[in-house]
């Protein structure tokens, strides 16, 4: 942890009416590393991502991306920062009146000068990567939930972003396919070296991919640690989480030990 973090949340608080969701989030994301955010449903993991993307403004606290407080900069600068992002929303947020092909092609068409031939080549390649060949002409409503997720992933990766945000990338995929997705992430990350922020419930498998694991509980990040340290942490909340999600191996050790 010697280099400067590229994303930093400092004491971010957010409440909705009487519900106090984020009670002071502190989190640092380091360049080229994969940070996995875990935690029970409804704790505010997706909300943290939305704060980093600048879609939700915190009640107090700062969100700093590339050294700039994204709630204080001008629209143009925010747009520049966002041009480094590739985002998969939890609900995929595909453009529902466009075909799969056009969805994935949209960032290329709007943000680059690529001609139609190049667009087609790149989009086909990304769709193949996500094992979606043959669905180019379908509309999002005609896809299964898992396919929608994969179209969202293809769209998030199509411009080779510097930072990716995946909100539950493998929820709704079968085991074989989610393993394949992890392999794809691993391959693309080693090739492109992007920084990744992944929200996932797929513990322990996702830990193999992680450089850091952050546990979100009770409105705060309990700790952000490398996976090995995470699994052996003294923090009682993290210990409980590890025991619950990774199950009997650790429990039985405890019983035996």
């Amino acid at each position: 942890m010697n280099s400067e973090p590229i994303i930093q949340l400092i004491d971010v608080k957010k409440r909705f009416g009487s519900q106090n969701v984020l009670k002071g989030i502190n989190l640092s994301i380091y360049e080229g590393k994969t940070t996995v955010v875990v935690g029970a449903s409804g704790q505010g993991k997706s909300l943290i991502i939305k704060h980093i993307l600048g879609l939700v403004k915190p009640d107090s606290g700062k969100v700093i991306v590339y050294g700039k407080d994204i709630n204080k900069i001008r629209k143009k600068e925010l747009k520049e920062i966002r041009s480094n992002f590739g985002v998969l929303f939890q609900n995929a947020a595909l453009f529902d009146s466009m075909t799969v092909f056009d969805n994935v092609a949209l960032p290329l068409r709007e943000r680059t000068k690529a001609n139609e031939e190049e667009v087609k080549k790149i989009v086909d390649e990304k769709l193949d990567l996500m094992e979606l060949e043959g669905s180019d002409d379908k509309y999002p409503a005609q896809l299964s939930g898992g396919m929608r997720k994969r179209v969202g992933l293809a769209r998030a990766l199509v411009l080779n972003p510097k930072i990716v945000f995946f909100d539950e990338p493998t929820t709704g995929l079968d085991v074989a396919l989610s393993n394949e997705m992890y392999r794809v992430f691993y391959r693309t990350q080693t090739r492109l070296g992007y920084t990744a922020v992944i929200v996932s419930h797929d513990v322990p498998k996702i830990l193999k991919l992680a450089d850091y694991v952050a546990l979100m509980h009770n409105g705060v990040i309990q700790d952000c640690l490398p996976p090995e340290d995470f699994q052996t942490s003294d923090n009682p909340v993290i210990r409980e989480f590890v025991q619950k999600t990774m199950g009997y191996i650790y429990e039985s050790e405890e019983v035996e030990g």
Partner: protein
Amino acid sequence: MPILRIFERIGDITLYYINQAGRMSIFLFHVIVSIFKPPYYKIFDITKQIYIIGTLSIFVIIFTGAFTGMVLGLQGYNTLRKFSSEGLLGSAVALSLIRELGPVLTALMVTGRAGSAICAEIGIMRNTEQIDALECMAIDPHKYILAPKFIASIISMPLLVAIFDVIGIMSGYLIGVKLLGVNEGSFFSSMYKNVEFIDVYMGLIKSFCFGLLVVWICSAKGYYVHMERKGGFGAEGVSRVTTSAVVLSSVLILVFDYFITSILI
């Protein structure tokens, strides 16, 4: 204290509407600025919207134009006959259509047909996070979704008004001259004599303003569906905001009609 509660509520509602008016003005400003910013449009984006807003409205416009012209012929004839000046029918029909009814009725029909569709489309995009997704891709939704609709509406409205006027005058002619027996020569000569450039100019200004007004109100309402006072969630939120967009846009058309007339007359 129930009395205080009432004032609190009135204050809340007032603040909400002031807030909404401000938000919608800023929205208008952003869209208009984005229209003139690069990247420039692919022509297809705009022609597609012109097709949706303009071309698909032509049939409705022809229909309403025809019946409006017919009823104007009928009413005008019966009123003018009392003063035995049926010969002025041509100018009466043409002036009321060109100055008032053409722009106003066309704008109302376009609000009902295209405005509601624009509002619902954008409201659904908002509620399903598609607008957030665009922003995160560093694509400006003002530029990408809204600007083509604004351009298309501003181009389409005057053309639709022109169609409405022509069809209306033709139907007034059919009823007045062919059915009720007004002299054909005096029908047209009174029209040539009394319709001046300022009348056409007024109709044109109105149709531009209404074109902007309809697309502005309807798209801004949809764009901010999540900030609605009564909750803009899901399908019901979109349906409610669409209704209120159509009502607001229709009312504002009539209000602006009065003010534009009073300025130009």
